[in-house]
């Protein structure tokens, strides 16, 4: 029976790393990885809860599986869209302008 503090701490670190990745990285895939880190943190918390017996039902562990599965599905879709983005724009830079149309519209007004 391990103390839950350590896994929670690790989860926090993971989540922090993920958020950092999301905010700091330009490359879409790296941002994707950041999201995965956050999901990992969530999974870790769930597993810990399930193991420390805080949860009365096995739902927590099952939920972890759910999260992982959904994450996988997301990654697939995300990569597909990013591929399309690369085809269309030639880059997968998330700092790039997404709404040029609206931008020029605003400029034209202002």
């Amino acid at each position, binding site marked *: 029976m391990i103390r839950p503090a350590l896994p929670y701490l690790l989860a926090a670190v993971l989540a922090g790393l993920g958020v950092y990745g999301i905010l700091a990285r330009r490359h879409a895939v790296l941002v994707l990885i950041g999201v995965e880190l956050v999901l990992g943190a969530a999974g870790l918390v769930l597993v810990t809860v399930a193991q420390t017996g805080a949860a009365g039902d096995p739902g927590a562990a099952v939920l972890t599986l759910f999260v992982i599965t959904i994450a996988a599905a997301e990654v697939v879709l995300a990569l597909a869209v990013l591929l399309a983005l690369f085809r269309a724009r030639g880059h997968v830079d*998330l700092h790039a302008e997404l709404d040029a149309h609206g931008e020029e519209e605003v400029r034209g007004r202002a």
Partner: protein
Amino acid sequence: MPDLPDVTWSDLQLPSLPLPHLPAPDLWGSPAHWAILATLLAALAGLGLTGRSNRLAAWVGVGGALLAFLATCWQLYTLTQIEGARRGAGTIGALPLGDLDAPLRLLVTWPLAIVAVTVAAVALVVQGYARWYLWYDPRYRPFAATVSLFTSAMLLVVLSDDLLLTLVGWEVMGWCSYLLVGHQSTRSAATRAASKALLVTRTADVGFVLGLLVLVAGAGTTRTTDVVRHWAEAGPSPALTAAMVLLVVGVAGKSALFPFQDWLPDAMEGPTPASALIHAATMVAAGTVVLAQLFPLLSVSGPARLLLAVLACVTMVGAAVLAFAQGDLKRLLAWSTVSQVALMLAVLAAATMGTGPDAALQHLVAHAWFKALLFLTTGWLGVLVGGTAMALMASGARRYRVLRHRFGWGLLALAGVPPFVGFFSKEAILGTAEAGTAATGGGFVPVLVLASVGATAPLTAAYCMRAWLVLSRPTAAQGHARLYEPDPVERIDDFFDEPQVVQEAEGVERAEAAISSSARMGTSALMLMTLFGGVVLLLPVWGPQAHVDLQLMAATLLLMVVSALLVRLAAGGVRTRDAAARIPAGVSLAAERGLHADLAYRVVVVTPVLALARAVAWFDAEVLDSWVRGAGVGSRLLGRVGDLTSPRRATPALALVLAGMLALAALGVVTA
């Protein structure tokens, strides 16, 4: 000095002879209703129904006045038949104002009934006269209607037993005076004078309204008799004093007491019949009536009496002096009105519960007769000679013999020479003032009043003498008098038809020299009343009266004679026999301008108010409204900012999401 017998007024009064009991026709309502409604309906019909026909309008106007006159006379008779000589009547029923009682009733007592008769009579004469005077005026119809309305309002004030009704009549008269004075609205002078009249009186009325508020709020009812009873029982109190002082201020405005006096002479811009009506019987006298109705309250509140006395006395003397210096007969009469009305009010201040207010009402009646006569005659002469300036009027009474007695008797009555009606009323006033002096053991107010009445008598005599000298100057002396050959004035016996003269080639001048029989009849009636009206003042119906101090009487008469002689002396050697010509030009000019009261009004009231108004308008537009404008502009600006700053890149959007999450989480944990 021989000890004169002590005569009391009641000795002079006629014995009350029993009247036969006439079979009274059972009419709807009371005579008061008829008098007020007849004139009111005449006004409405005159405006609404007469279409374009002056003739119909004249019938309506004169008919209404006639009906009112008959009704008031009938009312006199009914009073003799009623025990206690008080007759009340309801009007439109009480106002449902919750716990505030507003019955809106009428009440007739003897003195007021006589006043009502006088008002109706003068109105009747004025209506008949106006039909002639405004023959060529395209706006005769509204004029006649306004006169009817004016009469109705005055009758309402006289007969009302409810402060609200009094206020109604009071304000309506103010508006009618506006319309009458500004009758010739194409002349800016007339419009200006009218606006001035309305504004000055209405400003003073603020005091009147507030006074009524205090009285009504204290008594919990608007019925005058109940209000008087309540406050009289309550005795003197600060509230009562405040109320009466405010009322006096209002009265001072309507009755043109100092410092509100200046509107009245300017009101001469109106047609002469209007002036006669306003000055003789109605508007300026209304204050006297109201204060007489509230006399018990006035007599117990010292400050109000003091204020009234001081204002009245100042006005009385000052106006008499100014009247002497006027260069225009109508303005002279106007100032004399100011002085005479102040006389009525002063005696109200001096009277005690013992004497009662009737002396003021008596003088009101007397003044109504001779002042109406004087105005109408002046207008007549003005039409004949084409103006009312003294220079034009000179020797008018000589040229037109028909005017001679009218002017003469009117001026004699005004001066208060026996046996004319003015003499009796002035004696009543003197007696009352003296009684007040005696009662209060030489109190300040009665003494002041007595002194200033004594001072006014010779002044009045002086300007009457002056006017008479000018009017009756022999014509032969002047060459230009030959222009008018003194032929007898022609008559028009057809009452309401256009004079035949107009069709003749003589031209308008001679045509205007003619006067319709109705107008002539009216002035004649007034003339008779100035002579024999004293009988009315001696009727046994007037309230408790004072002694008549024969020494005082003799003294005043002597003073009057002396001043008249002085004037005669001063007039000697002046080409126009105008004593006022001795006065330095500057002084007389200032006098004609009413001592520049206009300037004072403008500096003290008009300019500050307008400045304040501009400031308010600016503040409203620039400060208050700017918030609303700012809201619109600001929201658009914020929207623009939000639009420009809303993230268009992926990463800032994600940052926003995470930041929002953090903020919400913090908020949630804090508030949990």
